[in-house]
C-alpha cells in the first residue's frame, strides 16, 4: 500500500497562483497543473529558442547577439550577488576547444527564500529553455541543474520535464536540426546550505564534500572538473526566454535603470499572506507588503530582513522608504540578496531572532577557515547567553569585534553572511541587547 500524504501537501495556491503578481514574466499564466511541455508551448514557450535557431523563418541570432541582448536587458544574477548576467556570459572562453559546462544553481537554502522551488515545480521548462539558450550563447554542450536535496519532489518533476524536452527534440544532439547540441541533467543535493555557494556546489557535483574553493580563479576559467563553467541561479535562467522574445530593452524598461526586469520576492514571517510575489524591480516596499496582505493581524511593522537571512536587518521606517531593487536596498545599508523578505512585527525580540540565525550559520560552516569555524560558534554562544540573561557588560563590544574580524577574512561569503546580521542587529537594535544584558529580561517577552 502506498502512503498518500497529498492532503498535507501544498497546492501552490497561496504561494504562487494568487493573481497578485505585477507584470509577471516567470510566474505568468500558471495554475499548478500546466507545468508540462504542451502547456508551456501554448504560453509561448520554446519560441525564444526557435527564434535564435531561425526555426520559424527569421534570421536567427548569433551567440554574440544573444549575449548582447542579455547585456542590454540589465539582468543581474538572482542568486544574491547581483552580478550582471550578460557580462558573466561574455567571460566564457567560447572558442577554447575543451569541454565547457553550464550549471544551474537551484540549491536555494537561504532562510526565507522559496522562489526557485515554485519556478521549478510549476514552470520547469522556462528554466530548461533559458539554459539551452545560455548554452548556445556560450558554446556549451553539457549542463547540470543542482537541486536542493530537501525538495525531492521538485527534482523528480524536473527530471520528468527533461524527458519531455528530450522527446520534443529541444535537448540532445542537433537541437531542432541545428548545429547546437546540449545535454542537460538533474543532480540533487542532500542537505548542506554551503553547497549553494558556487564553488562548493561544484565540489559537490564532483562527488565530494561541499567545501568552497578560493576565488579567483572563478568558475569561468576553472569550474566543474577543472573546466570553464558558467553558473547562474534558477530565476536568472528563467528570465532569459522572455528577454530573447521581447528584447533586452523591453526587459530593462520593465524595471528601473541598472535593475532590469521583474524579481520574485518571497514574503515570509509576519505577513497576512506569505508567498512569492513577482513584481517589477523598483516596486516600493510598501506596495509589496500590501500585496502580501500587510503585517499579520494588523500589527505594527518593526523590522524587515530584506534579502535572505544573511542580509542586514532594516528598521520599519528605513524599509518603508525603500524601493525593491539592488541599488535602493544597498543604499539603505542592506542588500537585495536572494529576494527573501523576512517581515517582523512589533512583538518580535531581535536578540531571539538573531540567536536562531547565529545557530544556523555556525551549524552550516564547512569548517575550512578558522575565522568562520571558530567565529560563528563564538557569535552564537554570545548571543545565546545574552538571550538567556547571562550576558556580560563587554559582550556587545566583543560581538562587534568578532563579527568585524570574520568579515573579509574567509574563503567564501558564508563568513560574511554570519557576521552581517550581527552587525545589522547591533546597529539598529542595540538597545534591545543592552536591555537583555542589564535587566536580564526581554523587552517583548511575548515572542514564542
Amino acid at each position: 500500500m502506498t502512503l498518500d500524504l497529498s492532503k498535507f501537501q501544498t497546492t501552490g495556491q497561496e504561494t504562487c497562483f494568487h493573481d497578485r503578481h505585477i507584470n509577471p514574466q516567470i510566474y505568468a499564466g500558471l495554475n499548478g497543473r500546466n507545468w508540462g511541455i504542451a502547456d508551456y508551448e501554448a504560453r509561448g514557450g520554446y519560441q525564444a529558442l526557435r527564434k535564435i535557431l531561425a526555426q520559424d523563418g527569421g534570421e536567427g541570432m548569433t551567440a554574440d547577439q544573444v549575449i548582447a541582448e542579455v547585456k542590454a536587458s540589465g539582468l543581474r544574477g538572482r542568486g544574491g550577488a547581483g552580478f550582471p548576467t550578460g557580462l558573466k556570459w561574455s567571460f566564457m572562453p567560447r572558442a577554447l576547444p575543451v569541454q565547457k559546462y553550464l550549471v544551474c544553481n537551484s540549491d536555494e537554502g537561504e532562510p526565507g527564500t522559496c522562489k526557485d522551488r515554485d519556478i521549478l515545480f510549476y514552470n520547469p521548462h522556462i528554466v530548461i529553455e533559458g539554459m539551452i539558450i545560455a548554452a548556445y550563447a556560450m558554446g556549451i554542450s553539457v549542463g547540470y541543474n543542482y537541486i536542493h536535496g530537501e525538495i525531492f519532489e521538485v527534482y523528480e518533476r524536473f527530471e520528468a520535464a527533461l524527458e519531455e524536452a528530450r522527446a520534443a527534440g529541444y535537448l540532445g544532439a542537433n537541437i531542432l536540426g541545428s548545429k547546437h547540441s546540449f545535454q542537460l541533467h538533474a543532480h540533487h543535493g542532500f542537505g548542506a546550505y554551503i553547497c549553494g555557494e558556487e564553488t562548493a556546489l561544484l565540489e559537490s557535483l564532483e562527488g565530494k564534500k561541499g567545501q568552497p574553493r578560493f576565488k579567483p580563479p572563478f568558475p569561468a576559467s576553472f569550474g566543474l572538473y577543472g573546466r570553464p563553467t558558467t553558473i547562474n541561479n534558477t530565476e536568472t535562467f528563467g528570465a532569459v526566454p522572455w528577454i530573447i522574445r521581447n528584447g533586452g530593452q523591453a526587459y530593462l524598461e520593465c524595471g528601473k535603470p541598472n535593475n532590469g526586469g521583474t524579481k520574485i520576492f518571497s514574503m515570509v514571517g509576519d505577513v497576512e499572506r506569505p508567498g512569492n510575489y513577482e513584481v517589477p524591480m523598483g516596486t516600493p516596499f510598501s506596495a509589496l507588503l500590501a500585496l502580501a496582505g500587510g503585517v499579520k493581524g494588523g500589527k505594527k511593522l518593526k523590522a524587515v530582513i530584506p534579502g535572505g537571512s544573511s542580509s542586514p536587518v532594516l528598521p520599519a521606517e528605513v524599509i518603508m522608504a525603500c524601493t525593491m531593487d539592488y541599488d535602493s536596498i544597498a543604499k539603505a545599508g542592506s542588500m537585495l540578496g536572494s529576494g527573501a523578505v523576512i517581515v517582523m512585527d512589533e512583538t518580535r525580540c531581535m536578540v531571539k531572532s538573531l540567536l536562531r540565525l547565529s545557530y544556523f550559520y555556525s551549524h552550516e560552516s564547512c569548517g575550512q577557515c578558522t575565522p568562520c569555524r571558530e567565529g560563528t560558534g563564538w557569535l552564537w554562544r554570545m548571543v545565546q547567553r545574552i538571550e538567556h540573561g547571562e550576558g556580560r557588560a563587554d559582550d556587545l563590544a566583543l560581538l562587534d569585534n568578532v563579527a568585524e574580524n570574520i568579515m573579509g577574512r574567509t574563503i567564501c561569503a558564508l563568513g560574511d553572511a554570519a557576521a552581517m546580521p550581527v552587525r545589522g542587529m547591533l546597529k539598529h537594535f542595540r538597545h534591545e541587547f543592552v536591555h537583555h544584558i542589564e535587566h536580564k529580561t526581554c523587552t517583548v517577552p511575548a515572542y514564542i
Partner: protein
Amino acid sequence: MFSEATLARFAREVAKYPPEQKQSAVMACLSIAQQEQGWVSPEAEAGIAEVLGMPAIAVREVTTFYNMYNQRQTGKFKLNVCTNLPCQLRNGQGALEHLCSKLGVQDGGTTADGLFTVQQCECLGACADAPVMLVNDRQMLSYMSNDRLDELVDTLAAHAKQGA
C-alpha cells in the same frame, strides 16, 4: 550487497556524468541506498565505493558532510521540522515541540515502537508554507498546524499497522 534493480538505479545516475567522473553519482547512490534500507550502513558505503571505483573513505566523507544522510537507523518515519527564523516566526518551533510531546520523544529521538524519529532541521526552502516538515527525506508537508500534525501521526501509524 545491492539487488539488480538497485544497481540499475545507480547506473541511471552514473550515466549523467562523463565516464571518468563516476564519483559524481555518489550523492544520488547514497540517497537511493538510504531510501531502500532506511540508512547508510558501512556495508552500503563500501558497496557504493566499489560500484563507483572510489575509496570507501571518500564515500564516508560525503555521508558525514551532508545533513540528510542517516548515519544510524531511524524510525520507520523520519520527520524533520524546520525551525529556522522564517519558520519560527510562524510557529515552526511550536510544531517541533508539539510533535515531540505528542510522541514522547526529545529532538532527535525515536519512539519506543520504532515508528517515529523527530528531528529539527534547517531551511527546507519552503518558508512561506510554515510550519513545514519533511517525511523520510522525500515528501514535504505544508501548513502543519497542531491539528494537522495530530492527523498526520494518526495517518502514519495507521499505515504502519496495515503494512505490518
